């Protein structure tokens, strides 16, 4: 086998420039595949991270997915009930203290209860519909990134107590109110209460900046006339990937709908899968094209070396050896190209990671291209390259193995 390898090396070394071009073709393919994978993966990671950061990982609400077990089912063995659906009973999560302490006992992460109600915010004759969210500031910090998003005032202003409210800057603009102004919140139950604006946040999501108002949990309970009630538990896990399991267990135990972030964003995650499929198709196509270069050079070598093939066969090399010889030559070029491609890929990714640009709309955020460094990208690109090199080498190799030495020797004599 070492002999075959040595002969293969002399063959490709004998066509130095052509070999170099073919290997360079593979290297370019591998390099760009790596760079593209790094960008795509980086973009995806960045996107998912933002998704995961802004959303609770698991959200338990006072809804139910399936109807409760019916008494008739307990009483009789065979019961058929048609058209059953859960009663729309939005009275909040029953026995929240027990639920919370049960969850705290086993969930690896932080959780925060809240009460969300619909209301209207009034200020100097204007009215804006809003979700009023009652939170406990001390635990809310653990599950919501909103703390970071304050333009004026701060989240901790809520913790001070009193009738403070935090609203989005867009809502403030629409109301014409500013920090320190007093607004009126009217709940669906018809209760009215005045709050002083203690902070303005800007999350970047219009729906939230325009439609959310944060107050203390007890104020929300007063507004909705539901003392001690909560209708939402938001959970931030240490490991976001564990969310579906946590949601499953919580839902099974509590009976309330628990939604993991993966479920809530299923369509987005599906789109990412489609994106990956597209990426790998393109990577495959690039390397297939590089494979043509290899096919070309191995074909040329087998033609040029027809005499050597004939003589080696007459010396007693079986056809399998000839096949291995040229397959090996293809793989050698593919491997050399891969290694070159790693370097090109690394440099490209490094270059891209240095690029910075501004988002014109806000004019203040300096952003880098999201880049993911992963050995896997290098491995996958090489695997593609070697695969196409193997095919590109095998086709002419098979033909070379079939060369009839008599034809060649007779032709030369």
């Amino acid at each position, binding site marked *: 086998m*070492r*002999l075959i390898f040595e*002969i293969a090396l*002399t*063959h490709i*070394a*004998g066509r130095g420039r052509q070999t170099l071009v073919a290997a360079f073709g593979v290297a370019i393919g591998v390099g760009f595949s790596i760079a593209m994978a790094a960008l795509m993966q980086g973009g995806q990671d960045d996107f998912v991270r933002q998704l995961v950061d802004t959303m609770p990982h698991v959200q338990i609400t006072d809804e139910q997915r399936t109807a409760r077990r019916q008494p008739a089912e307990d009483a009789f063995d065979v019961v058929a009930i048609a058209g059953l659906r859960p009663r729309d009973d939005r009275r909040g999560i029953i026995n929240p203290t027990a639920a919370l302490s049960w969850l705290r006992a086993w969930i690896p992460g932080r959780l925060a209860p809240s009460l969300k109600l619909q209301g209207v915010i009034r200020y100097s004759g204007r009215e804006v519909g809003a979700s009023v969210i009652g939170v406990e500031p001390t635990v809310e910090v653990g599950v919501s990134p909103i703390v970071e998003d304050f333009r004026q005032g701060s989240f901790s202003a809520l913790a001070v107590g009193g009738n403070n409210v935090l609203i989005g800057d867009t809502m403030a603009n629409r109301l014409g109110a500013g920090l320190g102004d007093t607004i009126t919140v009217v709940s669906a139950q018809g209760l009215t209460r005045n709050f002083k604006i203690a902070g303005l946040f800007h999350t970047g999501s219009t729906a939230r900046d325009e439609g959310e108002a944060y107050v203390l949990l007890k104020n929300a309970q007063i507004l909705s006339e539901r003392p001690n009630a909560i209708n939402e538990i938001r959970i931030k896990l240490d490991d976001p990937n564990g969310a579906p399991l946590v949601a499953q267990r919580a839902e099974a135990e509590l009976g309330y709908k628990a939604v993991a972030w993966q479920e809530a964003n299923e369509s987005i995650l599906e789109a990412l899968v489609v994106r990956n499929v597209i990426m790998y198709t393109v990577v495959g196509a690039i390397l297939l094209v590089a494979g043509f270069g290899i096919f070309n050079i191995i074909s040329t070598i087998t033609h040029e070396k027809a*005499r*050597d093939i*004939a*003589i*080696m*066969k*007459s*010396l*007693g*090399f*079986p*056809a*399998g*050896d000839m096949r291995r010889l040229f397959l090996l030559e293809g793989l050698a070029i593919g491997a050399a190209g891969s290694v070159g491609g790693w370097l090109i890929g690394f440099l490209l990714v490094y270059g891209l990671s240095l690029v910075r640009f501004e988002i014109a709309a806000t004019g203040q955020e300096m952003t880098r291209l999201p880049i993911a460094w992963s050995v896997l990208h290098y491995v996958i690109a090489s695997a593609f390259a070697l695969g196409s090199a193997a095919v590109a080498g095998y086709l002419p190799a098979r033909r070379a193995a079939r060369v*009839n*030495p*008599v034809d060649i*020797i*007779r032709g*030369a*004599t």
Partner: protein
Amino acid sequence: MSNLIETRNLTRILHETVPVTLVKDITLAIGEREFVAVTGPSGSGKSSLLYLLGLLDRPTEGTLFVAGRETEGMSEAERAAIRLSTIGFVFQFHFLLPEFTARENVEIPMRRLAKLSRPAMRERAGELLRSLGLGDHLDKRPDQMSGGQRQRVAVARALANDPPLILADEPTGSLDSRNSEQVFTILEALVRERGKTVVAVTHDLDMAARMDRRLHLIDGMLDGNLPTETPKPD
């Protein structure tokens, strides 16, 4: 049975638009230590017969035994294995691998056979080349040597695995008379001194006359009652 080669009604027909009979109904036996000339006009099937005997080609009909083994049912790999260990070829053109030195070319069949250690192969290749008067050219590549030297390297390569049978196809065909004489002397010495059997195709009748036995082919057949064949010198 001490016959290296035995054939019965060996026939080879090329199936092209018009079938061409290369070799027809050849029955012969060649034993050890024979020095055989295959002669005949061009196109008479001399080389075709040699390729059949050397397992490079398969007969259309007839049977062929090489070193006592029936070759018809053999796979390509088995035939290659027999070529490697039992048969050495010398062609009209040297057919050395151009990228390798003389010594490396001689080592190649040994390395494929892999019976010796690498140093032993190197040693043996050097010995073979020196015995053929190429001691100063061990590390030259084919394009740095003369035609006669290359042909002698080819002979050394044919001897690499010490096969009992050497098949030569016009071994002196592309050499001048001085080099021809030298190569012929070497082939003769292989029979006389090393106990090989050499079967050489040649159109040089003077040369054929100096060999022990002559097979004359006409139109692919052994000539009549083989009038040119002389008894084996035993």
